[in-house]
């Protein structure tokens, strides 16, 4: 009772500060693409992908960071979301129906009759308002389906099984083009509708106060809104009994069970929530690219997303966002920076090593030339960064703050209340 009069007074200035900070951050995020756009639209595109990766990393963070379930096949849910958009917002569904007619005429004709001639000719074109929730829901369903067999597994065993599931989904997508052409196989699905809100189509030219706003920038704002929504969801869940139950399972599954947590349901919920974020991200990826194919959903992608979560700080939302930004921007930055610095660096190296015998000299230059390729350097830096972070900051670049350094527990709060 005393506290209730004390806390708001103490909380008011910091709360004001927090709101002010949020407004500043929102403004900065709004202006960011205009600034990036000065250097070219490809830079806004990099931001778009960073946002997609943030969604993925936040989804995986629920499974790996909160619930402690090591999932190496997470990209499968990205794929499920992407192909949901591909089937429900492109001419592909007409191809599906046609292959039914070709293979099983009776079923095919029934389906054509069911869906009507328009869909049989042009495919399904749902609005983004339906695609996003459907992709999330379908991915969540897959999360539960793939999660159920793994409930009793932990650690390495769980990792291997989820890795297998991830690959299974990719291989399915690769091969589901016969006898019924569902996914168009390795060629992928093309002509996916760009995002449109009613008549506001992202792919048409738009302008704001006479300043042209390119398509990539519109996607930036859409993705940003989704990221904010996902962060909001995650924070709310984290600070609820469900979030605590996830962490309890991560910390000690037997104790969690004994405290009355139905670990089966809570784990499946983690898989479903994590997967749904991945699915939403995938649907946005499909609409943004206009094209999806199975090769976007390989094991390396799963590992990259896991690296984002681990590098940033497992279970800590700002850390995960940071990890996603760093690791998604790294290859792009290298792609731009390395070719520019290649010649100067080789030039300097040439002068520095010229006193070596010619054979050694040319070998050094040769090796350096090979390393100074964006792709090669990316792997090198990636690996090096991971090793260094794991050695020096094993809980990530930005881990959850350590509690309890000072006596700011309830006792301290209470004594402050008593002292007043």
């Amino acid at each position, binding site marked *: 009772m005393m506290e209730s009069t004390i806390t708001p007074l103490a909380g008011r200035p910091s709360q004001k500060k927090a709101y002010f900070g949020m407004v500043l951050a929102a403004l900065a995020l709004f202006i960011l693409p205009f600034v990036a756009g000065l250097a070219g639209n490809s830079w806004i595109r990099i931001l778009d992908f960073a946002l997609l990766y943030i969604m993925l990393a936040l989804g995986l963070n629920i499974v790996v960071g909160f619930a402690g379930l090591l999932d190496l096949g997470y990209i499968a849910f990205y794929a499920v979301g992407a192909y949901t958009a591909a089937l429900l917002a492109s001419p592909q569904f007409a191809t599906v129906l046609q292959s039914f007619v070709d293979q099983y005429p009776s079923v095919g004709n029934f389906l054509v009759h069911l869906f009507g001639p328009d869909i049989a000719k042009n495919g399904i074109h749902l609005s983004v308002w339906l695609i996003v929730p459907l992709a999330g829901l379908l991915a969540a369903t897959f999360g539960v389906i793939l999660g159920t067999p793994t409930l009793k597994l932990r650690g390495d065993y769980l990792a291997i099984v989820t890795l297998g599931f991830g690959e299974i989904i990719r291989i399915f997508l690769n091969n589901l083009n016969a006898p019924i052409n569902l996914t168009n196989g390795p060629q992928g699905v093309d002509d996916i509708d760009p995002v449109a809100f009613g008549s506001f189509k992202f792919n048409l030219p738009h302008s704001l106060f006479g300043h042209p706003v390119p398509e990539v920038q519109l996607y930036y704002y859409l993705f940003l809104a989704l990221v904010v929504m996902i962060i909001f969801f995650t924070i709310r869940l984290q600070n*609820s*009994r469900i979030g605590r139950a996830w*962490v309890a399972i991560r910390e000690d599954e037997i104790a969690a069970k004994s*405290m009355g947590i139905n670990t089966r349901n809570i784990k499946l919920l983690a898989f479903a929530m994590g997967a749904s974020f991945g699915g939403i991200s995938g649907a946005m990826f499909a609409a943004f690219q206009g094209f999806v194919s199975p090769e976007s959903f390989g094991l390396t992608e799963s590992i990259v997303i896991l690296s984002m979560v681990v590098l940033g700080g497992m279970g800590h939302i700002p850390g995960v966002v940071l990890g996603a930004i760093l690791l998604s921007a790294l290859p792009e930055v290298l792609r731009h920076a390395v070719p520019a610095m290649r010649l100067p660096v080789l030039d300097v190296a040439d002068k520095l090593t010229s006193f070596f015998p010619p054979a050694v000299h040319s070998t050094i230059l040769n090796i350096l030339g090979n390393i100074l390729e964006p792709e090669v350097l990316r792997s090198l830096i990636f690996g090096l960064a991971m090793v260094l972070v794991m050695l020096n900051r094993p809980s990530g670049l930005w881990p959850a703050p350590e509690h*309890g350094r000072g006596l700011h527990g309830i006792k301290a709060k209470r004594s402050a209340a008593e002292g007043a």
Partner: protein
Amino acid sequence: MPQPNDVILAIKGVSKRFGGLQALSDVGISIRRGQIYGLIGPNGAGKTTFFNVITGLYQADTGTFELDGKPYSPSAPHEVAKAGIARTFQNIRLFGEMTALENVMVGRHVRTRTGVIGAVLHTSSARAEEAAIRLRAEELLEYVGVAQYADFRARTLSYGDQRRLEIARALATDPQLLALDEPAAGMNATEKTGLRGLLESISRDGRTILLIEHDVKLVMGLCNRVTVLDYGRAIAEGAPADVQKNPAVIEAYLGGGGH
């Protein structure tokens, strides 16, 4: 007021076999409301096995289980917690990276119901429930005497405080029966005295306690009634003073050792 004599936990005929080892044969106990009930026996007597059977961690081969007059089936630990038995562990099992307060808040999980939608939308009932969880957890931390560490990660607490925190977490589930697996293990004399005081006050506040303990002195001083296990059988049952004189017990456990 509940009758002081009514039976809260009645377990009969529990047997459990691990391969070739008969860990428990035909063990039963009957605990009355408000008792501090001791389960003692030498190492390997089957105390912890029996405990794990009661709390659903192991499945018994045979046995009937009744809690507060209603049969319950210890088929899953979370069902047992829901039915009203909360436990602690011989080797402390706290949620190490969570704060002391959060540990106790997890204990409220089974008595609360906010789902994903309530949590995300912050509905008024979800907010009220969350506030009640926090309040209850704070009270319990105070009750067991570790309130000053509310904001500390559980793994950073001292051994004795971790034991207390585990008891607070178990109490948070509103148990009918508080089951403690060797709570005094590894404690020094001062910590033991403190623990004893805590258990006495929990008992005074009307909770029934089942205690597995190695420390005979603690059990004899604290418990109203004890069962002695040896080689998976209950060899004696009764008031501590009587059990102490029972020749079978002296033979199996106390005999010759000068306990």
